[in-house]
């Protein structure tokens, strides 16, 4: 990469001592693949130039090739920390495009899954942040609970990592009693782990000193740099789509949770916001699982947007025709000829999709608004003037998911 960017440094004979350090793309603290070109003055970072694209796999191009149901298997691979949040976002927008109103049961199940995703994301993020700063135990505790969540995914869909569980107008299958049981036991057991992690980290001298006051993002800068989600909320931007533009069942569960906000905007505050958010998510899950409505998970078959039940496909000609129409590439859905943007509050921030529809079952343009991409752009502003060892502290607190960063 030509580094003209570096030429703009205040150079001259007196700045000759600046040196360049290449950080990544294969570095343990980057978790996956991203690269930073750091200009250092001794150990102080003078300038950081991120270089990304080491995982650019053409997601958006694939979205123009696969239909609305097929593409869900791709969007969850875009976010390997909380895949199901992406599936929910994608179908949320597709349903917005087609004007489908989901059944109450489906809304509740999706809400529970979205919140489980938030917990699993924050567990990995905080755990890995601690891991990078040398605290291995918290990471192991966090992963233990992630395994429980993987188990829940496996119960509902058969895949523990990328469930691909949502479908246009509903879900792949209805959930079983076992799911309810597992979620209930998760709700009961999780607070203990959470308390353990808090005890390990919240007042851990090393952890606090390495994160407090590091990478401060002011409110103005957070807004100017388009930040959303926990990162913006840690800087005092009171915005949460779950409250501001309620979708799924959040409107009905409005009173069960709070939006966690803070004003300091440093790495430690971002950590604290995430830790608190997990508890709020747990409240949502507890309320939703107890009030899980009965009924169908898919919208009415007559709306022609969902697949009929398997038995009726085998037994009645109408269902068979409908199934056939939905899988034939030249039939499928007929959304309006327009473009739509929709977003959900994913664990990382506002995750939106911008779909341009040409009236077929395949999106003409499937743009993702990736929170990681937008948050990583703040990195040069956050790290300037800090020490080299703070790079990992700031990186960890931003929760960069490389697949979403590069798409």
């Amino acid at each position, binding site marked *: *990469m*030509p580094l*003209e*960017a570096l030429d703009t440094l205040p150079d001259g004979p007196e700045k000759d001592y600046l040196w360049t350090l290449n950080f990544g793309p294969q570095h343990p603290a980057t978790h996956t693949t991203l690269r930073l070109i750091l200009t250092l003055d001794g150990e102080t970072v003078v300038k950081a130039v991120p270089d*990304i*694209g080491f995982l*650019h796999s*053409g997601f*958006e*191009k*694939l979205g*123009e090739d696969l239909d609305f149901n097929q593409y869900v298997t791709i969007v969850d691979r875009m976010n390997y920390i909380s895949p199901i949040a992406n599936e929910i976002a994608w179908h949320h927008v597709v349903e*917005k495009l087609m*004007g489908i109103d989901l059944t109450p049961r489906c809304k509740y199940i999706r809400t529970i899954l979205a919140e489980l995703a938030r917990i699993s994301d924050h567990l990995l993020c905080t755990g890995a942040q601690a891991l990078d700063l040398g605290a291995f135990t918290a990471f192991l505790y966090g992963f233990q609970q992630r395994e429980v969540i993987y188990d829940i995914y496996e119960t509902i869909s058969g895949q523990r990592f990328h469930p691909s569980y949502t479908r246009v107008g509903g879900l792949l299958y209805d959930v079983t009693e076992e799911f309810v049981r597992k979620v209930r036991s998760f709700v009961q057991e999780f607070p203990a782990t959470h308390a353990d992690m808090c005890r390990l980290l919240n007042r851990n001298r090393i952890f606090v000193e390495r994160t407090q006051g590091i990478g401060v993002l002011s409110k103005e*800068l957070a*807004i*100017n*740099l*388009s*930040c959303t989600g926990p990162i913006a909320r840690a800087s005092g*931007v*009171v*915005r949460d789509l779950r*409250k*501001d*533009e*309620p979708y799924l069942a959040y409107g009905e569960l*409005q009173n069960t949770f*709070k*939006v*966690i*906000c*803070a*004003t300091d905007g440093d790495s430690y505050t971002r950590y604290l916001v995430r830790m*608190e958010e997990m508890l709020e998510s747990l409240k949502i899950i507890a309320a939703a699982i107890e009030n899980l409505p009965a009924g169908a998970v898919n919208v009415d078959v007559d709306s022609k947007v969902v697949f009929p039940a398997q038995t009726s496909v085998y037994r009645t000609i109408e269902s068979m025709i409908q199934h056939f129409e939905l899988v034939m590439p030249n039939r499928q859905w007929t959304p*309006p*000829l*327009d*473009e*739509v*943007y*929709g*977003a959900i509050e994913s664990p990382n921030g*506002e995750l*939106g999709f*911008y779909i*341009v529809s*040409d*009236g077929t079952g395949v999106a*003409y*343009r499937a*743009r993702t*608004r990736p929170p990681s*991409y*937008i948050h*990583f*752009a703040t990195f040069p*502003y956050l790290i300037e003037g800090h020490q080299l060892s703070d790079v990992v502290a700031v990186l960890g607190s931003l929760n960069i998911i490389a697949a979403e960063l*590069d*798409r």
Partner: protein
Amino acid sequence: MPARNVDRTKRIIMPFDTIITALKGRFADLATSEFRDNRRVVVAPAQLFDVLKSLQEEHGFDLLFEMTAADYLKYPNAVDRFGVVYGLLNTVTGERVFVKTVLNEPDLTLPSAFSLWKGADWLEREIYDMYGILFDGHPDLRRILMPEAFAGHPLRKDYPLRGRGERHNFPVITRANS
């Protein structure tokens, strides 16, 4: 940890129409459209920067939450080749507005929004990388996702999904030379 639970669903939202009237008073031939809850203003590239600036300064749209482009080469009945969409959000009222503009070859240049929102930096670089649309006044417009030496703009509709063979263009390491 301070936490707030404000019922912000009941806020007073400045009607979209007043914004439109105010904008229309300043800029002629401004088109608007609406779909679901997305409200769009369609402007010509020449007016784009002024519209964005007026939205930011006079109407409080302080967050650029989305910026993207689309190639309408194969879109049914499309007249223009590229469309660029800016999504603006007012963080106080939670209101959103989309500003859309269209572009045609050979003049693929837009004014950069970097001076209004620093967040536009990478978003513009991505659009340049994927579509080849240039942004005038961007401080550092170079490829961001694709390799520097890459030729072509992958999200254009005339670029094939499987590429033109770039992905096979590497030296092979066998056991003997490793």
